[in-house]
């Protein structure tokens, strides 16, 4: 076990864990930030997506010793009151069914919009196809994304 200081949701956090521990389990087990979900552990479903310096990353593929000074944002830190434009769009379109994958979907979209405020269908599909929704809410996810003018 090694002691690390990492920045999560704007705060410096101290964690003791093995260097190869995926960030996913650091968040869920050490920091009790369970909004980031385990889905596959191999970077194939997107349920564990977080922002690393503003870019979407699969936290199951990022070992703790490679986090360094990078700033991590999880679904819990995306907005103070759940009022990020993407979260609002998700509520407006009542996207969720079981809801398990939606934190990952929202983190992927919000990172996309940081860099491309008005994505077209092709860009949305290319980005979002890394996130599986077993309930099949894809048409609503797409409609919700398209309803967001821009995060500016």
């Amino acid at each position, binding site marked *: 076990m090694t002691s690390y200081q990492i920045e999560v949701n704007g705060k410096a956090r101290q964690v003791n864990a093995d260097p190869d521990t995926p960030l996913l389990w650091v968040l869920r087990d050490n920091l009790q930030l369970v*909004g980031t979900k385990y*889905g596959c552990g191999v970077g194939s479903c997107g349920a564990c997506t977080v922002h690393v310096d503003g870019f979407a990353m699969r936290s199951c593929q990022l070992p703790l010793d490679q986090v360094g000074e990078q700033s991590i944002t999880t*679904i819990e830190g995306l907005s103070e009151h*759940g009022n990020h434009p993407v*979260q609002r769009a998700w509520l407006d379109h009542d996207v*969720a069914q079981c809801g398990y994958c939606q934190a990952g979907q929202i983190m992927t979209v919000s990172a996309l919009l940081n860099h491309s405020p008005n994505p077209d269908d092709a860009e949305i599909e290319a980005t979002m196809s890394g996130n599986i929704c077993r309930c099949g809410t*894809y048409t609503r996810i797409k409609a919700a994304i398209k309803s967001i003018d821009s995060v500016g």
Partner: protein
Amino acid sequence: MSTHSEINQRRRFLKTGLLGSGGLLLGFNWLTGCTNNTAGHVDADSGPELPDTWQDINAYLKIGNNGTVTIYTPNPEFGQGVMTAMPMILAEELDVDWKDVISEQAPFNAEKFGFQFTGGSRGIMSRWAGLRQAGATARQMLITAAAQQWEVPVNEVSTKAGRLFHSASDRSAGYGEVATIAATLPMPEEVPLKEIKDFSIIGNSKKNVQGRQIVTGHPLFGIDYRKEGMLTAMIVHPPSFGQKFHRIRNLDEVKGMPGIRDVFHFQTYKDGFEKGGFDTNAFPELVAIVGDSTWPVMKAKKALLVDWQEQEAFVESINGFRGKTTRNVPTGLENSTDHESRMKEMAAIPGREVRKDGDPERAFQSATKVLERSYSAPFLAHNCMEPMNAFAHVEGDKVWIAGPLQAPGMIEPTIAARMDIPVENIDIEMTRMGGGFGRRAYSHYMLEAALISQQVKAPVQLIYSREDDMTNGIYRPAYHATYRAAIDENGQLTALHIKAGGVPESPLFANRFPAGSVDNYLAEEWSIDSNITIGAFRAPRSNFMAGAEQAFLDELAEELGKDPIDFRLELLDRAKENPVGEQNDYDPERYAGVLKLVRKKSGWGEGDQDLQRGVSAYFCHNSYAAHVLDLKIEDGKPVVQKVTCAIDCGIVVNPDAAANMAEGGIVDGVGNALYGELTFTDGKPDKNNFDTYRMIRMNEAPKEIDVHFVPSEIDPTGLGEPPFPPVFGAMANAIYKATGERRYRQPFWGEGLKG
């Protein structure tokens, strides 16, 4: 109009539903705290104001002194929306403002809430009358309380949106002001229910009451459950079906790994245990690895070396829904290629006759033409996004369980039998499920967690890795069906013959359409024993039969030179006007209704010559669904342009959420029809994670889905499953239009297939 038996059912529901009202909510606290589910406040920062005191009116609701109402949803939530729709039904009859409602998952308590089950699309259907009655009787008690307080006749008191009024004396009071008196009143026997035309909540879309918690990452799911001192456990199971545990080779080494508390082998059932209907479980002998947190346990799991041995053949006795049955479990390591050839062999010999009308043999002998086609489909894994998991804490003779499960009442007696603990000492908390699709009806993982907790004497969370979840499955079986049609010299259909089977169960529904629409009809079935475990998967058996039947009817219509919708309507017309046989389990008129609606909404036949579209309709789980699917092949890949869908499921409680579920069923159908497949080599699943198991993704989903419900005043019927099965037929028929080639083997766009 209520029939006598309906009234009796309601009384029974309320009686059981009211026993011991005022019961304490048991269970653990979420470490991170659990905010209220804010029914009417999904867009606001906070929910209804919490009152100083609550009054239990009946098992399903309590009213705060400020008028806030908490409504308990008896059935577990797995994304089908019951935590929103069930309180809507009660709130309608209670006549309360939706914004004052808090929705909570009821505790598991069969005495108070009856059969708390999610499955078979029966949730809303089975709770409809009882929840209305619970709301209506509570309203009546509030009215009586107000009348007593104001000393006015009961029939002069009216209600509106959570308030009571006496217009003659110009008095009014909130529900919360009279709840204390109301709670002391006797429960009225039977009270009138609202007229459907007066509904103001039912039929008006309400947003998911947990929507805000979902989008903010609030802990809701079983896997998010936390308790002080909780350890993490994982299991190791045989890699192949047909194998069992032999020995651990490096026990001490793995036990000594950092963060590991214990490694041990255990048996999930006692010898000779008679299984219940949901006790399906391929690997009842497991190795448990317990540690401080997930990653060390995952590493230990990788390091553990276990020898497995062949599982000899056995006969399992099951006391399930169809009474006592036995299951022959053969020995050996099975292969999907063998399954396919054995299914073809079985299809070629006579099966077990299930239904026969007229003289099908003669009709086939005298036919001018016989159309015969065979259809097949592979095993499928459920692949719920939240892997199987369970929290358990065993202390002495007390068991606490929390986690995602569809049928708590079915695992409780199994836990009791294994642990020699009375059911009264077992407490099960139902968490929101990250999907279910049938898989979580079989909650052996709850018992596994309890046994692990008992062994390590600590609260434990058992988590299946994705690989465990996919390879320790209770799968959709592999199926096969042969359809034959006899056509006479006048080009008329004279007989139908269906022979269906599977590994290890038959998918046949002998009394469903087209039975009843053809004079001469024969339905036969067969099955092949297997040691691969199977179980309910969204619309069991229907999810295969609908595709086979609707693809065959399409080809038959073409053979007869008829429009596919007209042909189906002709058959349904015959079934309505002059049905063959007496046991046809469908209503031809409602069946035809969805076909007519989807024809209209899709613009079928109205200048659609350029569209490559397939139609399909099916009846299951008491509801009717029809789809028109428009397909284009782009760069050699199937692209679903649009699915138009018509559903008759009676009254729709929460229309937008209902449309969402239908959309999901359609996406699920498109994905499984085109890509879904789990094959086995030497008993081992060939895929174990999402990098190899092809799940539908956004770029493969239909570009547009247009859902329509048949307006209805019939009590609600199923919705979670019915839209799913007909997708397979619509897809098969659209592929034919788009490629000129009919495909009979699912997945239609599996590996190696090109457009």
